[in-house]
């Protein structure tokens, strides 16, 4: 029982052994002193042999810098280690010369990076990239190194490894690349593996594969692991200990069960609260108020204080240090003792009835047989040789006043669908009816009408705002474009909208780069609302935001819906969030919708094998569930929409596929138990046991 | 072992051949030869392939006795046939040589030109080694004036080439001649290498070979002279740029001849078709306005001889010419009298783009501006200038024409109807005087005629005479004989004279 061992590792009898890695008081700054970014402040933690530790925190909280400093990977300048030690087997990684550290890197401590595509060298074969570390550290011959690399590729599940060694990174899918990244890290059998958000850039189903793989390899190879993530639920399932970071400082560390059961630091509590629970009833999300911290300020106070409900003057004057709460559990908060036992969900939380209040069954938008194909041209004459079937026959309805969620993996055609509805993409085929009017080929006046009635909130809160326009102009753009109102009335309307989305008036003259992610997204929402649309397409409006901010936006969308009687088409891939906010769900796979139904029925009794796999891959913010939940891990990667598989698009990855699936595309069938809400599934085997 | 003489050569037109270019003659002095060459002393011609000649009728018929025992470089004997062939080649309209005018006085030239005859009637062999040339009228100085730039070609080689294919024929890059050096190698835009001809009829040369190194631009020649990559900077490109003189004079291995007369009158050109310049007072005013002495002393660093008429030869100039000393007030007065409108700019063309000449134009512009003549200099290349001449689309210009050898060579600039350089000037009296000069071999008679002509030219200023050009030359002392030749030469007559006696030059031990 290793877990118990590590949990009790700081009991007196264990002291003599010493941890494998001991980080003490590490501080890192960037930039010139006086104008520094205080990226890491006085961080200390230990890692025992074979232990698995998660470092969790939001973007910019210093997670990557912490581990990269250990490996001597930050660039100096501009980086500076201002204090601390990092003892690895007794040697201080921060002071030994780079020539020595080099022998530890890759051999004793290895690392997997966030974005598999960009962390592999695009111009070298993966064979070379896999073997070079072996040859460097173990002096192996090319042959020997290749054999070992091959073994490792097999281990991480790359089929046909021998041949694939000659391929270049761009010839692999994201999931495969991350496997290669893992193989590369493991190839020298390091004693510590650092995984820096290795799944963030991946699709949900692929993410599940990777998490599974790393957890298995860690056990098999018996190494210690530091897993960095911004997603508490993701790590809940498979690490032993969690360290929570905020603004460069560790705010809480605890064994994983204890952290979930008895979070102590207000930030940790806030984080947990802002995660929608899969199991709990529909309670309103409790976001952490305010914006992410400013790391340009010297760390002389509690960085969380500005956002903390419990902050007192002391919090703003001095920085708390990590204090043990119980053995193995420490928190850095002046008031933890007083707050201890404060419930995770504060009393303010209201249970909301999320059942749709609108009149059901009156369709606002009907999409029928929508196809959007992008031509592929090749050859001397640029003839069209095929098409990317981004959307390949999609039909759905959005009922007035409801939120329909469109979910599916990256590239399955969600955004294209949304854009086609909005008229930003010309459909190749199909019907788009809004309030009974067909908009598929709308132009001129009709298109203008559509502009007023439908709007979109975009995924990327930075890319969707013109960096050279002020907030006020951005929000007012639609009004100007459609010549609504006078200049003065438009100004008034902008003020109104600012208030509506919770932005202060002075922000109107700011430029997007002067705003935080959450504020930017509010601007995006305000812009969409300017013309008082009835219907809003929200294309992954929260996926680029920090966890603690996501809840703010979701709540905002929810409020607006209630106040303005809006209807949403919500595009997303974060299933727990979707479950929380949607009335009905449509699951998309490779240009087609495979399952539609009320949120309750789809999440409760998923019928399509793909939906089931998707749902099972949702990380659960509960360490206990981690062990018991059975994940359906899909094989293979997301296929290419220009060459969709025959018959049912899903059949090559489907655990239930039979011969008919490859031949015949299944027809949608209704499996609803009541007449009120349909539950349509497009699968030959739906409903089978 | 006689060593190598490296001579700079600023030309790229070797491939076109002697018959079509003005720039390849130097090679003909060492490889091909003529019947006669001008003596390096500049005052007479010297027999070459013609051992002697006589004219029984005072200049109408010439009989040339050719040199015996001369062989072409390929071993074929040289005979009278080659001479007849060559003179016909120059005159052949199908060849289209710009030099054909040199034979314009030969009987039958007109007929040959207009196609009614297939050769020059006036040229025939008397025997294998004797050639007779008959002219239309008596020209006592014909040999001295017209024959010097005519080369003799091997009939046995070029005779096989159709006349229209002569230009650019392979022969020109692999010449076979009778001269002291044998054509060895030509590398386009790099050099021509010629080797010693042990059988040369005036005696085997002492030098082993001569390499003519080709340059497009002057500064590289100066650099090469300084680094001893070439031995001679003679006439090429106007000689040594004035600005580089001091520098070269400091080098002890060079002999620099700083004031070498080029026999080259330099003048301001007027387009007399333009009414503004038809008034002689305007032309005179221009000359009064320019401080030529200052320009020569400073910009040209003394490299120029003030001149007030066309002829560079002292004997051809009257002593009582109006000096046109610098007098801006007089210039203004003359202009005022002529009703000059200073507001109108004057288009002023020139084509010498070297620094000294550009500076000179600058100075002229400045002087003229001071008296209210606003010239706008415009640099043109030869093709453009000829176009401008042909179209008459210019008003003034700054030019020079080489006519050092004989005053008569100046006639194309000033006689009535001269094309393209006359620009409308005509004075019957002047034309008569030129004819008088040509009709006699007597220096006294000729001097009288030319001096009278010089007075007219001085007074009427069909062109505003500025000065006679001086060209500094520089040679490496390594080559014995070369610098001496030039030192004793009265003026550099383009590049004709230089290579007489080249067989006697040697590399210093």
């Amino acid at each position, binding site marked *: 029982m290793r877990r118990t061992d590590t949990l009790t590792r700081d009991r007196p009898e264990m002291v003599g052994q010493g941890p494998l890695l001991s980080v003490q008081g590490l501080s890192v700054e960037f930039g010139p002193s006086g104008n520094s970014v205080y990226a890491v402040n006085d961080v200390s933690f230990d890692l025992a042999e074979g232990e698995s530790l998660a470092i969790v925190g939001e973007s910019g909280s210093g997670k990557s810098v912490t581990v990269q400093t250990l*490996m001597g*990977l930050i660039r100096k300048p501009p980086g500076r280690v201002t204090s601390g030690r990092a003892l690895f087997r007794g040697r201080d990684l921060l002071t030994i010369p780079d020539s020595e550290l080099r022998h*530890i*890197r*890759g*051999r004793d401590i290895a*690392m997997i*990076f966030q974005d598999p595509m*960009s962390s*592999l*060298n*695009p*111009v*070298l074969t993966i064979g070379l990239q896999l073997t*070079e*570390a072996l040859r*460097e550290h173990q002096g192996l011959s090319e042959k020997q190194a290749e054999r070992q690399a091959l073994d490792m590729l097999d281990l991480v599940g790359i089929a046909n490894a021998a041949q694939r060694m000659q391929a*270049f990174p*761009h010839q692999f899918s994201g999931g495969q690349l991350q496997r290669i990244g893992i193989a590369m890290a493991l190839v020298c059998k390091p004693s510590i593996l650092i995984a820096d958000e290795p799944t963030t850039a991946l699709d949900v189903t692929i993410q599940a594969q990777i998490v599974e793989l790393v957890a298995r390899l860690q056990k098999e190879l018996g190494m210690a692991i530091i897993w960095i993530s911004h997603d508490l639920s993701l790590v809940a399932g498979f690490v032993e200990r969690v360290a929570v970071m905020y603004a460069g400082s560790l705010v809480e560390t605890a064994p994983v069960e204890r952290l979930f059961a008895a979070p102590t630091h207000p930030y940790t509590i806030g984080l947990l609260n802002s995660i929608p629970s899969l199991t709990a009833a529909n309670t309103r999300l409790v976001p952490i108020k305010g914006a992410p911290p400013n790391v340009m300020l010297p760390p002389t106070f509690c960085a969380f204080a500005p956002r903390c409900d419990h902050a007192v003057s002391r919090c703003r004057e001095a920085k708390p240090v990590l204090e043990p709460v119980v053995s193995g559990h420490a928190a850095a908060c002046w008031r933890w003792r007083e707050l201890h036992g404060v419930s995770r969900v504060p009393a303010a939380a209201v249970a909301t009835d999320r059942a749709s209040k609108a009149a059901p069954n009156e369709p606002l938008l009907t999409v029928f047989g929508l196809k959007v194909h992008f031509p592929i041209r*090749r*050859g001397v*004459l*640029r003839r069209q040789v095929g098409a990317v079937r981004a959307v390949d026959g999609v039909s759905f309805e959005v009922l007035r006043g409801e939120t329909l969620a469109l979910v599916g993996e990256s590239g399955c055609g969600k955004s294209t669908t949304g854009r086609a509805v909005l008229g930003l993409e010309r459909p190749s085929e199909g019907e788009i009816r809004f309030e009974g009017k067909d908009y598929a080929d709308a132009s001129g006046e009709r298109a203008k009408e559509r502009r007023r009635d439908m709007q979109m909130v975009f995924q990327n809160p930075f890319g969707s705002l013109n960096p050279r326009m002020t907030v006020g102009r951005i929000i007012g753009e639609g009004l100007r474009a459609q010549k609504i109102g006078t200049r003065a009335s438009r100004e008034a309307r902008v003020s109104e909208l600012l208030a509506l989305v919770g932005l202060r008036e002075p922000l109107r003259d700011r430029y997007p780069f002067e705003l935080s992610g959450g504020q930017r997204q509010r601007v995006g929402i305000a812009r969409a609302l300017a013309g008082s649309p009835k219907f809003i397409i929200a294309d992954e409006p929260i996926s680029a935001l920090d966890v603690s901010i996501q809840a703010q936006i979701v709540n905002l969308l929810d409020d607006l819906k209630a106040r303005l009687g809006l209807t949403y088409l919500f595009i997303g891939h974060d299933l727990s969030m979707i479950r929380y906010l949607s009335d009905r769900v449509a699951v998309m796979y490779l240009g087609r919708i495979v399952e539609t139904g009320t949120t309750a029925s789809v999440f409760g009794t998923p019928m399509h094998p793909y939906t089931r796999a998707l749902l099972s891959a949702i990380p659960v913010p509960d360490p206990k569930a981690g062990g018991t939940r059975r994940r359906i891990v899909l094989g293979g990667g997301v296929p290419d929409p220009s060459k969709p598989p025959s018959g049912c698009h899903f059949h090559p990855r489907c655990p239930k596929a039979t011969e008919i699936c490859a031949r015949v595309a299944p027809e949608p069938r209704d499996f609803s138990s009541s007449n009120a809400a349909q539950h349509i599934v497009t699968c030959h085997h739906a409903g089978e046991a | 072992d006689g060593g190598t003489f*490296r001579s700079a050569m600023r030309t790229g037109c070797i491939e*076109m051949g002697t018959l*079509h270019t003005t720039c390849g003659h130097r090679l003909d002095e060492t490889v091909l030869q003529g019947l006669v060459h001008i003596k390096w002393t500049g005052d007479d011609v010297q027999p070459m392939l013609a051992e002697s000649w006589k004219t029984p009728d005072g200049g109408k018929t010439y009989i040339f006795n050719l040199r015996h025992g001369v062989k072409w470089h390929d071993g074929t004997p040289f005979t009278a046939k080659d001479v007849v062939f060559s003179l016909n080649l120059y005159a052949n309209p199908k060849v*289209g040589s*710009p*030099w*054909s*005018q040199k034979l314009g006085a030969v009987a039958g030239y007109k007929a040959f*030109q207009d196609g009614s005859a297939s050769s020059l009637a006036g040229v025939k062999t008397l025997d294998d080694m004797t050639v007779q040339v008959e002219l239309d009228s008596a020209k006592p100085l014909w040999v001295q004036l017209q024959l010097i730039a005519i080369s003799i070609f091997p009939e046995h080689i070029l005779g096989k080439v159709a006349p*229209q294919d002569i230009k*650019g024929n392979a022969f*020109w890059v692999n010449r076979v001649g009778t001269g002291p050096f044998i054509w060895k190698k030509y590398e*386009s*835009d*790099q*050099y021509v*290498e010629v080797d010693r001809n042990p059988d040369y009829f005036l005696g085997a040369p002492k030098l082993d070979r001569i*390499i003519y*190194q080709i340059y*497009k*631009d002057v*500064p*590289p020649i100066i*650099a*090469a002279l*300084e*680094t001893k990559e070439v031995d001679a900077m003679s006439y090429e490109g106007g000689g040594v740029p004035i600005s580089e003189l001091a520098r070269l004079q400091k080098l002890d291995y060079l002999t620099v001849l700083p004031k070498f007369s080029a026999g080259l009158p330099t003048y301001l050109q007027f387009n007399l078709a333009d009414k503004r310049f038809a008034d002689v007072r305007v032309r005179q005013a221009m000359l009064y306005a320019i401080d030529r002495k200052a320009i020569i002393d400073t910009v040209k660093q003394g490299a120029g001889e003030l001149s007030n008429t066309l002829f560079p030869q002292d004997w051809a100039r009257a002593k009582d010419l109006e000096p046109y000393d610098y007098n801006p007030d007089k210039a203004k007065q003359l202009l005022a009298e002529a009703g000059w409108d200073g507001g109108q700019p004057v288009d002023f063309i020139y084509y010498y783009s070297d620094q000294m000449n550009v500076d000179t134009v600058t100075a002229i512009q400045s002087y003229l501006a001071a008296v209210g003549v606003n010239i706008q200099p415009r640099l043109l*290349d*030869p*093709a453009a*200038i*000829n*176009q401008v001449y042909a179209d008459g689309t210019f008003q003034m210009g700054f030019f020079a024409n080489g006519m050092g050898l004989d005053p008569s060579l100046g006639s*194309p600039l000033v006689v009535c109807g001269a*094309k*393209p350089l006359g620009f409308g000037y005509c004075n019957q009296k002047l034309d008569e005087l030129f004819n008088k000069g040509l009709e006699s071999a007597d220096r006294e008679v000729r001097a009288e005629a030319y001096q009278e002509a010089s007075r007219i030219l001085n007074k009427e200023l069909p062109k505003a005479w500025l000065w006679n050009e001086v060209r500094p030359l520089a040679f490496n002392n390594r080559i014995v004989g070369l610098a001496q030749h030039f030192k004793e030469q009265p003026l550099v007559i*383009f590049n004709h004279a230089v290579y007489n006696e080249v067989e006697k030059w040697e590399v210093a031990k």
Partner: protein
Amino acid sequence: MLSYLLRKLLLGVPVLFGVTIIVFAIAHAMPGDAVLAMITAEAPSSEELIAMRRGELGLDQPLYIQYLNWIGEILHGNLGRSFVNGRGVAAIIGERLPMTLELMGVALLAAFVIGTTLGVISALRQYRLTDYSLTLGGFVGVSIPDFFMGLLLVYVFALELRWLPSSGISTAGDSFSIADNLRHLILPAAALALFRAAIFMRYARAGMLEVLNQSYMRTAKAKGLRPSIIVLRHGLRNALIPLVTVFGLALPTLFGGSVVIETIFQWPGIGLMFIDAVVNRDSPVIMGYVLITAIIVMLANLATDLAYSVLDPRVSYD
């Protein structure tokens, strides 16, 4: 790939066609013509002679006929004959092109190697003295015109130090030797190269800095590789990719530069030939020159594309 090349070549045809028209127009719009260019005061020509010579050269025909004749020649693989010496233009260019290519090739290669090396060093030493001095040196390098650089080099290395010959392609009259040729090549090539080395340096530095920030560089470092391997194998390979474009764009300017440099160093390449042709109004040579350089530039652009796909496996042309 093949289809891409084919397409590019096919597209090149109308482009070259356009080039011929423009070039023909320019060559014939110059004041004066080949016949006038040959006239000098020493050898005045009669109007009949001029007319005859024009007739011989076909200059008396209407322009479109002249153009069609020329195009006809081109389609037969000829480039016409020089007005000046009657030789085939293709032969003349064929004789001289190798010299120009030698000069340009060496200059470009030297500029590339030197520029890239210094750029990489500069990037690796960012914000240190080496970086600042190299950057400043580079800026000075891009501010000196070709011709003045040539003059300075001659002054220093040929006249003052007497290390190298001042002009020419080899010692005239000596039998050709590579060593001798290279000695002559150094100064003109350097005059052409220094400016471009400075440009390459700037791009290499920027490229390398960008690459240094890429996460695969971090990965390489995290693997504990030797610094030399990290810089060369992982860094340089990637930094070279954008440089290929700069390399391709340098070529047309190099033709222009070689006109100047060949004049200064009496390098008997096509640049020198071109200048002579302009003076002589030798339009077939002028047109041939521009056409050939356009074709070379075009082929070089294709080669750049190829190099791109070799250096960067992600690039696939279809």
